[in-house]
């Protein structure tokens, strides 16, 4: 490769939803496919429920930058509200993508999606979690589903790599269940090029 590849991602979730874990698993998964990857986290004073940010950079070279991703290539929202209240969308790169956990249809939110967004993926990760009874202490676990969906929208890493890192992270039953969630999301995501 001559040209350096650099993909930047921003994850927006809530305390307890596992966005940080997802971002980290993502880094592990892409590293398996021979990319250099970072997962950066912004921890505020959040408690359960408050917005949480995580970032990825991936490249074919070692990355020495250490700052947060400001204008991501793709922004991932764990719920619609987060898309509305955070400023992440504003800073998305021109031509960037969005991945959203949402049970509704694209049309019902189209008006709030800015022009610069070129691709949008919608997946009902909460629905999958409900279906699979993926909960921890009352909270639905949606991060692995989001990972699966990301693999599809980004074409990177393979869903196999995602499966691997999930099962590796949670050996046993829980890993299996989460891997299923990822696959379901990978299959069910609705991707629209805008």
């Amino acid at each position: 490769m001559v040209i350096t590849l650099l993909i930047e991602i921003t994850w927006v979730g809530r305390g307890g939803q596992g966005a940080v874990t997802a971002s980290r698993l993502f880094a592990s998964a892409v590293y398996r496919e021979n990319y250099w990857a970072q997962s950066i986290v912004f921890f505020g004073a959040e408690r359960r429920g408050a917005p949480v940010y995580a970032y990825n950079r991936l490249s074919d070279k070692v990355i020495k930058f250490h700052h947060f991703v400001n204008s991501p290539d793709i922004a991932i929202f764990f719920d619609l509200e987060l898309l509305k209240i955070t400023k992440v969308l504003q800073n998305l790169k021109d031509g960037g993508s969005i991945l959203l956990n949402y049970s509704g249809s694209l049309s019902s939110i189209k008006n709030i999606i800015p022009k610069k967004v070129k691709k949008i993926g919608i997946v009902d990760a909460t629905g999958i979690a409900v279906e699979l009874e993926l909960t921890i202490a009352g909270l639905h676990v949606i991060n692995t589903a989001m990972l699966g969906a990301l693999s599809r929208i980004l074409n990177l890493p393979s869903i196999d790599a995602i499966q691997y890192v999930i099962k590796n992270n949670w050996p046993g039953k829980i890993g299996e269940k989460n891997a299923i969630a990822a696959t379901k999301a990978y299959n069910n995501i609705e991707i629209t090029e805008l």
Partner: protein
Amino acid sequence: MTKTIYDELIEREDLVLPGNTSCPGCGSILALRYVLKALGKDTIIVIPASCSSVYQAIFPYSSIKVHIFNTAFASAAAVASGLKHALVAKGYDDVNVLVWGGDGGLIDIGFATVSGAAERNEDIIVAVYDNEAYMNTGIQRSGSTPPGAITTTTYAGKSEEKKPMPYLMLLHGVPYVATASSGYPLDLYQKVKKARNIHGFRFLHIFAPCPPGWRFDDSKTVTVAKLAVETGYWILWEAEQTDHGLNFSISGPSRPYIDPARRKPLEDYLMLQGRFRDISPEKINLIKKYIDNQWEFIKRFLE
């Protein structure tokens, strides 16, 4: 219609504001609501590092409508001592100075500070909300964590016993010591009202369930707190030094459980909480021993 406690509660201002940054179902902030209802506006809170230094929300806003001085972890009881002396020196005698801290800040790292302030009989209220671990840093064991509880520093469940803090403070011979619980806001409210009017060092030990830390559903905060009392694990009592000696009494909600036969099985309490999921029978026995010790100790005081 005569004025009930409900009317009084409705009347008195809520000084913990909604839209704060506590977790859903937080037992600690629930308790603080009643502590401040009882103390009222003329109060300064000194808060050491803990969840409560975080659930105030972030600069430039605050969710708590009295003066707050945030301070370093081990220092709260000493800061409060200084504040109180300054207020008195400046002629403001009737301001409540409250320390509001967790078990880590007041029972572990800051224990010497609390004990020193008690020994000097400083005119302050020290209230520990006991969620039985360091929650703000992500659930590490504290001296107040019970045996068997899983924390991020005790993967196999804690081996040691829970430090019997309220009894240690009782032995310090200070004017007022009481235990309370987030599950019994009215009992707590009454105790703080009483404490407010006593001069000298007052200590409140408040049981405060923590959904993420104890791994139970957010909605179960009160249920868990009640089970702690109903199983006899957490005993509500108060002890006031009067001119005629120590006035020790078991508070209403705990009274039925003087009789062990009336206590619910400890397992009812443990089962609800993920932190006890792997607890061994030996460790359950340690907790039972802790319960027995407490009741025995208390009975000695009641005689």
